[in-house]
């Protein structure tokens, strides 16, 4: 399954939830937030939100800023 992750194409081995994607990325414990198709997916919903072909996923965190 192909998704777009942070602006880059990414091939996933099979069906995956948001939580599984974060696990693959090693970010399961990182303070981050996830959007799928410009909609926030709250942390509580990560284990149940299934990704679909062509989904645009953003994984963001906090950085220095003014």
């Amino acid at each position, binding site marked *: 399954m192909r998704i777009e*992750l*942070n*602006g880059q194409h990414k091939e996933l081995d099979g069906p995956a939830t948001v939580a599984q994607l974060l696990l693959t*990325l*090693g*970010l399961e414990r*990182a*303070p*981050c*937030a996830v*959007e799928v198709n*410009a909609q*926030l997916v*709250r*942390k509580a919903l990560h284990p149940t939100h299934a990704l679909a072909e062509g989904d645009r996923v*953003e*994984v*963001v*965190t*906090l*950085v*220095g*800023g*003014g």
Partner: protein
Amino acid sequence: MLEAANAEYLMSTHQPTINVRTAPVAPALPPLRIGSFTLSSRLVVGTGKYRDYTTMQAAIEASGADCVTVAVRRERLVDAEGRSILDFLPLERLTILPNTAGCFTADDAVRVSRLGREILEQLGNPGAGWVKLEVLGDRTTLLPDPVGTLEACKELVKDGFTVLCYSSDDPIIAARLRDAGAASVMPAGSPIGSGRGIANPAAIRMVIDRLKLAEQGGSAEYPVIVDAGVGTASDIVHAMELGADGVLLNTGIAHAQDPVRMAHAMRLALDAGWHTARAGRIPRKLYANASSPWEGVITHIPGE
């Protein structure tokens, strides 16, 4: 032998005496209230552009700020070694204020606000409840898009955010943002990172009057924070003298040659400006007004 004698002589007779004297401590500034948030420092500092996290940490400490701004950005998925800024911020005593820097539409600013809130909720930081809203017009000026800012402000207020609106120094849009529910309006002294200080003091004064004076429909309690453009400590004094409740800055500290020392200076400037604004400055005059009495002078005064 002679050298030793000389040294002894100098030690015994030429030791300077310094009368160490400390001035009474100036009254403490009251906390800054913004919606349901209370900050002990009226200086809010950014966390961007530092040469390293250790310098940032020391500068935040020196600034005395208990609120710092951060931005929301993509995880750098390639860099597993990358250290997070969060490891360098004492989250237990700082309120994090996430911004929407880099947003040019109201929709994007709302998205980014929600993402920032989501992360701060996970961290258990009180900053989850608020946002520094920036909807910018373009990358060259980084000036606020007033229409987009107003639109995003309404949406975020509806969504339960305490919204601090970065704005231009225009009293009309400032009042519109306040009416739309902004908990604070933050007029720009000059463009972000420009270091030009308060480019139009009269305009900043009009924004402050519009939002804070009862006769203009304002309230003295309404917090106005001058945001952006601060290049040096006197810019902070200037903003506070004009009646601002606080100042937000980043580059002025982060890009100073000695950021930690500059952070100290900025903190002192804020206190100086606060007290100046309440001490009642003397009116400006064209000509001089002697401080020493004329009575009793023993001199010839020209023209008399």
